């Protein structure tokens, strides 16, 4: 089921009316949801951005789905990054102390090694991911997109009910 949804997301995103830039921006924003622990305040902000900004929603869902396993795999690295920043970098300690004792900020769980490590990683990955995926989408649409559109698998996917739901949030050209 999960795999099917992933394929649906992939097809919908790659063949949407959105520009490659919109799709790439959505994918890069969605990567935040996948890379960082989901139930955190910062992801509410990311989700709001995905909705409000004119980026591909399907791209965001695709980014989310693609980066969830990456997040699980990289948790040890996130933990290391978080520990390094929170505990082993004395220069940053005044910043963390100020944030920890400020209103609302502690509700983001920034002082959790996994949350901070994954957030920093996702933020650093955003720009390269945006440009790499935009280039990839342009290449895809120029080469194999038409053949895929004619395939039976694609037609069965776009005929599903989920596709109709997606159309509500498709990017505005």
């Amino acid at each position, binding site marked *: 089921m999960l795999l099917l949804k992933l394929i649906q997301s992939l097809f919908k995103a790659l063949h949407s009316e959105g*520009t490659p*830039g*919109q799709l790439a921006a959505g994918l890069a924003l969605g990567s935040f949801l996948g890379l960082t*622990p989901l*139930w955190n305040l910062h992801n509410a902000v990311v989700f*709001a951005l995905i*909705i*409000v*900004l*004119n980026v591909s929603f399907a791209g965001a869902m695709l980014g989310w789905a693609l980066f969830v396993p990456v*997040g*699980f795999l990289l*948790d*040890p690295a*996130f*933990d290391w990054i*978080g*520990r390094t920043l*929170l*505990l082993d970098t004395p220069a940053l*300690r005044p910043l*963390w*102390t*100020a*944030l*920890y*004792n*400020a*209103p*609302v900020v*502690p*509700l983001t*769980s920034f*002082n*959790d*090694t*996994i*949350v901070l*490590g994954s957030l920093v990683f996702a933020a650093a990955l955003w720009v390269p991911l945006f440009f790499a995926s935009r280039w990839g989408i342009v290449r895809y649409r120029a080469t194999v997109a038409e053949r895929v559109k004619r395939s039976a698998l694609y037609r069965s996917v776009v005929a599903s009910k989920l596709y109709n739901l997606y159309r509500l*949030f498709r*990017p*505005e*050209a």
Partner: protein
Amino acid sequence: MTHIVGTARVAVFRWKAVRPLLVFGAVTLGLWLVFADRIARRTAESVGTTLIGAEVEIERLHLDLPHGRVEIHGLTVASPFEALQNLLQADALVADLEPLPLLEKKLVIDRLTATGLKFGTARLTDGRAGGRSDGVMGQVTRWGEQLQVPALALPTGKISAARLDPAQLTTPRAAAALGARADSARQAWDSQLKGLDVAATADSARRMAERLRGAKATDVKLLGDARRTLGQLKQAQDRVTALERSATSGIAALQAGAAGLTDAKQRDYATARGLLKLPGLDAPDIGAALFGPAAVGRFQRALYWVELGRRYMPPGLLPRATPGPQRARRAGATVRFPRANGEPAFLLKTAELSVQLGAAGTIPRTYAASLSGVTSDPALYGRPATASATAPGFRLGALLDHVRPTPRDTATASLAGVALPPLSLPSLPIRLEPGAGTVALSLAVQGDEVRARWTMQSDRVRWTRDSSGAAPPSPTGDLVWRVVSGIPTLAVSASLTGSLARPRLAVSSNLDRALAERLRAVAGAELAVAERRVRAQVDSLVDGQVAPVLAKVTVLGGDVTRRLGGERTQLDDARKALEQRLRALTGLPGVRLP
């Protein structure tokens, strides 16, 4: 707002999605409000379970945020030590919160009232969380295991020495070290003796004496040479004396080392006895064998709370990492950054508790207890955490002072006139039901130093044969039964001193003397045989390595003494001969040669 992509203008914002987003946000908020109580209850249960190390269950929790109040009904905290027992149950807890710190994810409780607190109630399922080897529980369990409690067992038949591991014996290691020292000393002395070159000096003196035989008293040059030779002889004698002194002290040190092997062997005998679980016949051993495990259990429980306090209420203001929340992803660590003059992450200013206690066979009565200053950041709060409760026959006082860098934890509790829990004597099919009695525990842990005492007294003890099969019938059990079954009173006292890393346990009871005498009479001979067997086993492992070393030390001492004596004799003889010649040549009686 728009921007240009290629040749087409693309809007940056998707304005039509703002309304659904707001609706989504409102629905989310509504759902949170509907499920807030449930979410808070689950969070409280999860956090409590992690903190205590046993299941925390809450029947109902209500968040009354407008009034800054939380109500908890039906709180059950399982015991982290006993499988089917609760640590406490409370009918209701009402906490008045300060709302502003909540925005900083901090919980400051101004006042907590708890009603219907009951301790030690039964439960149907095992509520212990985590393994016995995890976290603080594992730490305390390992700590308890280092307190060796002798087992009370009459040695019958052959006692196997197979478990005696030679690696645990200290004598062979000491013998090897002493042997190496002896070899090294021999090498050094040999080299120094060679360096003295006594034979050459003595030969030179003897040749000079020969030359003087036919010389004249007017041969000033020869006389001068003779005096120089005599001076060289004296210097050689001084060097021999110095070497003798050094060798004497070295030999004395080696002999002291050899004597130390005897002490090491005594320690190995004790180690072997302990490994073979042969009890001593002294009264303190009996007390430790009978009540040691129970005392260790009490001390472990007390230290468990002390360690939990130290873990979650650490002194100082440095950043602290604690395990992160449980989730599908890795938990990581949550780091707190306390700031001077800031609010602690958790603070319970005061708590008023209504405790239900009852003497055996009576209806429980309600008594008051209080708690104050429980905080995750004692250095910020600046005052120690205290707990106190007083009731007829019950007294509790505790102070956890983690304000200063060296934590100081003290607690004292006593309970009189209540039914004391039954005890099974270790490895014996005997069960002790102390009935109504008095039990007291006091504990002081300052830094790493611990001082604790547990006492139990009862005037109406009941002894029963334990037929559950946990401990099979044995001659020791029969013997102990004959002695204790006629004793109606019980007074046990256990003390724990020293550092947490190296604690010392002492246990005594009024049964010790009676049992020791009886055991000595009945089993003394058998125990003596067993001990002789154990000693023989140690001897067989040790003597083969010790004897050559002792012989080496003895031979070395004699050898060095003999060789030095020989060297000295050579020099003395040569000097005597030379002096005689000189006297004869100068012919002046009473004249002392230089």
